[in-house]
């Protein structure tokens, strides 16, 4: 399936791309359209674009919304969702100090990648690593 989002991806969209590939659609193909572009390719599912189904809702990140929509009740994913929420949305309560670091790293990763395709591939490693390390904590 094709998934489309705005160019210049950051913490939330890298996380979403990893989640989609790993948990929702292993065959996922990603497309990018310029920020603010209203017309979405017909055969693609948009994400992290204001107003679409897979977007921020109720002050939560798109990653968080993906978990809800797909009923992914996995404690480690819930923790990552909290981090992405704190990195990407204004939160009154913060409980994951790693969130700011994650935000910085993903931003920097996009900066040193030649395009969004490369950034999305490299982002997979970040979230795979995060997931693996958080899994260690689990009893």
């Amino acid at each position, binding site marked *: 399936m094709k998934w489309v989002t705005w160019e210049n991806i950051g913490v939330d969209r890298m996380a979403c791309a990893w989640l989609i590939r790993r948990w929702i659609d292993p065959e996922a193909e990603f497309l990018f359209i310029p920020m603010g572009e209203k017309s979405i390719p017909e055969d693609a599912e948009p994400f992290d674009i*204001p*107003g679409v189904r897979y*977007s*921020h809702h109720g*002050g939560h990140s798109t990653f968080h919304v993906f978990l809800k929509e797909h009923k992914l009740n996995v404690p480690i994913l819930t923790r990552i969702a909290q981090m992405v929420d704190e990195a990407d949305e*204004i939160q*009154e309560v913060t409980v994951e100090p790693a969130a700011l670091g994650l935000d910085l790293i993903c931003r920097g990763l996009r900066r040193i990648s030649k395009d969004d395709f490369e950034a999305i591939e490299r982002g997979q490693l970040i979230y795979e690593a995060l997931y693996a390390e958080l899994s260690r904590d689990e009893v």
Partner: protein
Amino acid sequence: MSIWLLLHYKLPSKPSALRVYIWRKLKRVGAILLHEAVWVLPDNPRTAEQVQWLAAEIQEMGGNAYYWRANTILGQHEQSMVQQFNEQVDAVYSDLLKKLEKPRADLQEISKHYQQAASQDFFHSKLGMLVREKLTSKRGEKL
């Protein structure tokens, strides 16, 4: 020249909790409300993202929000904005400096407040640097 993000919005009059919720979020990131009309933040990738999603949330609540990138025409207005942002964080920083002077200062508590202020310190206040230096030099100090 600095680039600013401006946000103004309208929310349904009820429930009034929505207003408080949005207002708190804007305060939390250190936005300044000018003339009870327009919220201002310096433009950077992080604030731009935050404002974008806040506007989307306002829309979702049945409100309406516009946000803009802008620069001031008069240099003095820019200086005045920078000053207002600095004063906002400096108030916190001077309070932290006072706390640091006290014997047995709670360094954990102070560093928590420092981090919060630093996230709103868009123009690198000198006082902030001082708090940071004092905090890091006190680290490991025996009571």
